[in-house]
């Protein structure tokens, strides 16, 4: 088989099974079972080929899955679930909300802050969009907010969640691309903060341009002492845990896995101190973390042999030779890869997109001389942007599903646009000022 036949054969089978509606993990498994039997089956009849090929597949899955590098994924998820099911999260958002006082479009800001925290820890933009959409949109409508002031910020939070640590998806990307996990987590901080500032400016501008879109309403004034209490008791301890985790990673005091485990323990201790640690809450937290962990790890299990098959069949090296043969300049190549991710995001979840593209894109990026951490930050952004890009971005449909019945697809498109614009602007900034991504990780060294 020529390299391009092997490539289309492997990619085609996975996409075919996915399109049928086979669970993603099994789609990868099925395609890899067939691919492994074909390429790694060696000599002999079909049964002995399948024995060898599937044997290679399940054996390859062992080092892929039983890798310490993956450990931050369940740990971050568990940390987030405990944060929510013990009520610590509510406590923090309530405090943020009250501290903002009469800030114009206050609820939009609360949505961004809360949504980022939720998506960041739940590891699922879709879950967080569904939750916030059903929670915040009706609430904001009741307060007289126009729809776009609610929907836009919710759609925007996924991008922040992916960049600002802790980020389970960033860990997965770093693991799949064999990058320094700590470095990628740290690299996301600055772009994440810049994106958050852009969102804040955007919301303020929208509120100033059309004050009726986010009408102010009366609030009980709170005293300075009360404000301090809210800040030091309800916000600072929670934020300190997240910052603590980041610092442990950044200065190499602990590996990302260890930092994540400490973060988990920290949240449990904190919940106990607030007397909000319940058996029921713990069970729900572990169950929630177990679901997402298992789902993600089985997909990775299924794809364990995919990149090996690409290498073994010569597809990876063939594609790289072909793609670099055009001698396009690196930025054009970057934009092509970016475009492919945008298209895939129309019908695929983020983990599947990563699994399909990482074994192809990262060797290519290396050949092109890119800083791989910087490139990974751009890939993370692309994954998120693709999710909210009209007309088919998946989150848009999730949003449609959970928002009030009179919401039109067009409302959602228009709400998403300015926030996608911010993410796109960040990508442009990253291209011209790569230091945004590479500076912080270099400090830790």
């Amino acid at each position, binding site marked *: 088989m020529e390299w391009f036949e092997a490539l289309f054969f492997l990619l085609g089978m996975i996409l075919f099974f996915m399109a049928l509606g086979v669970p993603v993990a099994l789609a990868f498994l099925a395609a890899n079972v067939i691919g492994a039997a074909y390429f*790694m*089956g*060696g*000599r*002999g009849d079909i049964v002995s080929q399948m024995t*060898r*090929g599937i*044997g*290679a597949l399940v*054996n*390859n899955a*062992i*080092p*892929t899955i039983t890798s*310490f590098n993956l450990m931050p994924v369940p740990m971050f998820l568990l940390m987030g679930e405990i944060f929510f099911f013990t009520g610590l999260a509510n406590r923090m958002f309530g405090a943020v909300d009250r501290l903002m006082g009469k800030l114009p479009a206050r609820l939009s800001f609360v949505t961004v802050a809360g949504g980022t925290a939720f998506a960041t820890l739940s590891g699922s933009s879709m879950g967080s969009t569904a939750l916030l959409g059903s929670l915040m949109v009706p609430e904001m409508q009741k307060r007289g907010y126009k729809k776009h002031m609610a929907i836009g910020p919710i759609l925007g939070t996924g991008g922040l969640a992916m960049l600002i640590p802790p980020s389970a998806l960033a860990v997965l990307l770093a693991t799949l691309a*064999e990058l*320094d996990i*700590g470095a990628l987590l740290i690299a996301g901080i600055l772009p994440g903060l810049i994106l958050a500032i852009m969102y804040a400016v955007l919301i303020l501008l929208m509120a100033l341009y059309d004050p009726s879109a986010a009408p102010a309403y009366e609030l009980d004034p709170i005293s300075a002492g009360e404000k301090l209490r809210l800040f030091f008791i309800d916000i600072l301890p929670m934020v300190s845990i997240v910052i603590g985790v980041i610092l442990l990673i950044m*200065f*190499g*005091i602990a*590996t990302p896995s260890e930092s994540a485990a400490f973060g988990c323990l920290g949240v449990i201790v904190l919940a106990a101190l607030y007397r909000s640690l319940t058996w029921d809450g713990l069970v729900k937290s572990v169950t929630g973390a177990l679901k997402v962990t298992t789902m993600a790890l089985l997909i990775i299990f299924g794809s364990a042999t995919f*990149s*090996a098959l690409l*290498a*073994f069949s010569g597809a*990876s090296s063939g594609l790289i030779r072909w793609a670099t043969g055009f001698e396009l300049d690196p930025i054009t190549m970057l934009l092509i890869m970016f475009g492919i991710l945008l298209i895939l995001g129309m019908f695929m979840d983020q983990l599947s997109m990563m699994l399909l593209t990482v074994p192809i894109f990262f060797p290519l990026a290396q050949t092109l001389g890119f800083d791989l951490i910087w490139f990974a930050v751009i890939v993370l952004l692309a994954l998120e942007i693709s999710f909210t890009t009209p007309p088919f971005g998946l989150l848009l449909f999730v949003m449609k599903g959970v928002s009030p019945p009179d919401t039109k697809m067009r409302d959602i498109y228009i709400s998403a646009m300015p926030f996608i614009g911010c993410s796109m602007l960040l990508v442009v900034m990253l291209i011209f000022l790569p230091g945004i991504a590479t500076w912080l990780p270099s400090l*830790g*060294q």
Partner: protein
Amino acid sequence: QAEDRISAVHAFPEFLVYTKTFLAMVEDINARGEGIVQIEVRGGPEAIGMFEQPAAVRDGVIDMVHTPGSFYGANVPEIDAMVAARVTPMEARANGGAAVMDEAHRERFNVTHLGWIDGGIKFHIFMNKAPVFDENGVLDLTGVKLRDNPIYNAFFTALNASTSSMPATEVYSALEKGVVDSAAWTQIGIPQLKWNEFLTHRVDPFFYNTDLGVIMNLDAWNALSQESRDLITTVVQEWEEKSYNDRQADVVTDNQILAEGGMEFVSHPTEEAGAAYQKLADDAAWARMKERIGGTDAGMARYNKLRELYAGDSGS
């Protein structure tokens, strides 16, 4: 008669000197084997995971692999004789040790051991501070955070080290951040890995040997023509000697680079202490082999034979 075709993979990435040796050897075989036998290299650890490669060869997924024997040491415990050897690959071949090694491979793993490549390279412990020696003058690693690897775990435990496991690719950043402050590595390769940016002291003498070899699936081997088998055997044995000599030259070069970079070579206080240190290492390897063999008569007979041929002592 049709040309024989052999598929092969290698355990390490292409930039490593050991892989380069293997690829050069394959090129040599292919050049001399035109019309007889051709080896097609399918890639390195990106094509099949490095620890999965030996079993992939045994099971016929691939025909040939270039790998450290320790990667399948649980299957062929006899490989530890190469780790603890006091002879060169050429000496082991001349005295019949290599034949015993091949026999163990055929019996236990359905592969044939074709040769011991890049032999004669030893290991050192490298540290970021001056080593401490105990009352007997043997290295004491109490309070030292050492990068662990299953191959030397037993030896390091005997030296009292506090160990943590990680792949070689993560050692640089672990050293940088102080997650570990010491690591063992071969006599060559430290400058390429840049670990000498953090590691300032080398503990002498060396211990152990690299155990890189080329193994081939036995069924695939038997399916080759006699001419192919003869050619491969000849070329691999030539490379046993050639690669040994080349690597000895590399050892001299790397020693010079490390010395010029300010690395201190700290010997054990007395020669006896140094010998005791080496014996501690060797004993750990022989003990592991004995334990894995599990005490069967045939196994113990081979253990004693290997100990005699590879280390020149009877062991029992």
